[in-house]
């Protein structure tokens, strides 16, 4: 454990990534206390699309709301959407992957076929299809992104379980009379934690990107919820008059995603260098 931490701390980009994540998490928690205005209530049409000034550091949006306030609150929305989506993907995908990899045979074949079918919907498309069924909205977008992640978790967990299944300690546990459930939960999964943690961190970045993408298309969080993607989607028509409105939310998305990507890369190298190139 200390070894891993040491390797992680030596990874300068990973440390930078962790700092970015920490900053956004802190800003998200503190948003209600440090924001100069209210994210939805403080609007003023007389002062709409104003460029950055001392009263509004990042300017105002199309309804005259303070951009800085909305971006700070957007950090709350985006991080929450990321965490919920990744958890949904993990809690559905990991058990399926573990069972499929452990038992193998026709069950595994069936699961893999199903995963293949889901993977025929590239990237954000599966999330868009799910939103079409559930209807647009913040919670539905989270569920949609989470479901779209399920195949990835099934694949990753199944792969690691397959690798662990034949190890001697598993055989030993079996010889001692441990049941299948106990073997999976107590012996196999704890040893598969490294790839699972890495994939969760990297997928946090994707989840934030996709949730913002759905918001941008009008399928995610609905106005007036401060969400970075939705803010971009709403303000893009004013790109000529007020470029700042489309610039800042995008910078926020990019930095947050960059943080998770850098930290995820570093974690991967620190936890298991062999994973390099596979994820």
């Amino acid at each position, binding site marked *: 454990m200390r070894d891993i931490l040491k390797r992680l701390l030596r990874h300068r980009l990973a440390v930078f990534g962790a700092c970015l994540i920490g900053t956004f998490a802190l800003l998200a928690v503190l948003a209600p206390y440090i924001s100069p205005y209210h994210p939805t209530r403080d609007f003023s049409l007389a002062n709409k699309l104003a460029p950055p000034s001392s009263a509004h550091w990042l300017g105002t949006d199309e309804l005259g709301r303070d951009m800085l306030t909305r971006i700070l609150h957007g950090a709350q929305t985006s991080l929450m959407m990321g965490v919920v989506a990744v958890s949904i993907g993990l809690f559905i995908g990991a058990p399926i992957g573990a069972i499929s990899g452990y038992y193998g045979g026709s069950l595994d074949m069936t699961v893999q076929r199903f995963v293949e079918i889901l993977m*025929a919907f590239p990237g954000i498309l599966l999330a868009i299809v799910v939103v079409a*069924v559930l209807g647009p909205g913040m919670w539905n977008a989270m569920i949609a992104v989470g479901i779209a992640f399920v195949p990835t978790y099934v694949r990753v967990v199944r792969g690691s379980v397959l690798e662990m299944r034949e190890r001697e300690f598993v055989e030993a546990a079996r010889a001692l009379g441990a049941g299948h459930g106990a073997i999976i939960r107590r012996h196999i999964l704890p040893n598969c934690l490294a790839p699972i943690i890495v994939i969760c961190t990297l997928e946090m*970045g994707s989840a934030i*990107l996709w949730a913002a993408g759905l918001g941008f298309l009008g399928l995610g969080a609905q106005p007036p919820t401060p969400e970075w993607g939705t803010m971009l989607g709403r303000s893009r028509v004013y790109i000529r008059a007020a470029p700042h409105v489309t610039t800042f939310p995008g910078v926020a998305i990019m930095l947050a995603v960059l943080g998770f990507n850098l930290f995820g890369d570093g974690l991967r190298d620190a936890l298991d260098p062999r994973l390099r*190139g596979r994820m």
Partner: protein
Amino acid sequence: MIQYTLRRLFMAIPTLLGVTVLVFGIVRMLPGDPAQTLAGVYATRDTVERVRRELGLDQPIHMQYVQFMSGLFQGDLGRSIRTGRPVSIEVWERLLPTLELTAMSLLLATLFGITAGVVSASKPYSLFDYTSMALALVGVSAPVFWLGLMLMLLFSVQLGWLPAAGRGTINHLILPSIALAANSIALIARFTRSTMLEVLRMEYVGTARAKGLREPTVILRHAFRNALIAVITIVGLRFGTLLSGAVLTETVFNWPGVGRLMVDSILARDYPVVQGAVLMVAGSFVVINLVVDLLYSVVNPRVQYG
């Protein structure tokens, strides 16, 4: 080889069938009654029932699927609720622009990604290496729709060099395809660099250098050719990402593609079009993956197929 090709083709069939079942099922789960929607809000109950019979929606669900599949094989995907035109024509018209955008982006991504990766690897820790890898990190993390908006802001609004939206000339294609390609350029560059660095450490590269071959020859003829196989796989895998990124890029640049059509149809609850568009995109993705797989086996003589 022929046997492998046939087996791969055969294996794609259940996946494609599964996709049709899934899309069919999802569209049946969508909120709202299609018969009511088509008949209009003020239709009498009799009219709605007649429309329902005409659409075959009074049949049991498995019969509906059989009807749907036989229609699919005849190229009949129903009619759009919004325009009344056949879905197959609506989607087909939009599929070409999407493929045009995706193909152009793939070309840019391969060209720039591989070049940047190879140059970076041949002079690691140089200024070029640091700059291109920093740019690659930005490219991986920036949302495609925001990148599109920023390109539009710079090259259309500020400089006025390129059109901001629409499709027509080659100039219209430049900004959307760069925006869409950026993420893939970044990933391909990073991957090419790390693969090249690995290959350059191999003994045979040392031998080539010891023979007195010039550095460019060593890099291009000896190292790059061996790195290429791994790089091609990554390039092939990018296609899906590009296809799904196209949905967002099309919205930014008002590009009349199938992704834009899909989102518009979802928002307008035009389900026959949603069904057709999703089927087309997923279907072409499966086919493209198959082609990439087969190409890979042609390029890589080391892989054995049994």
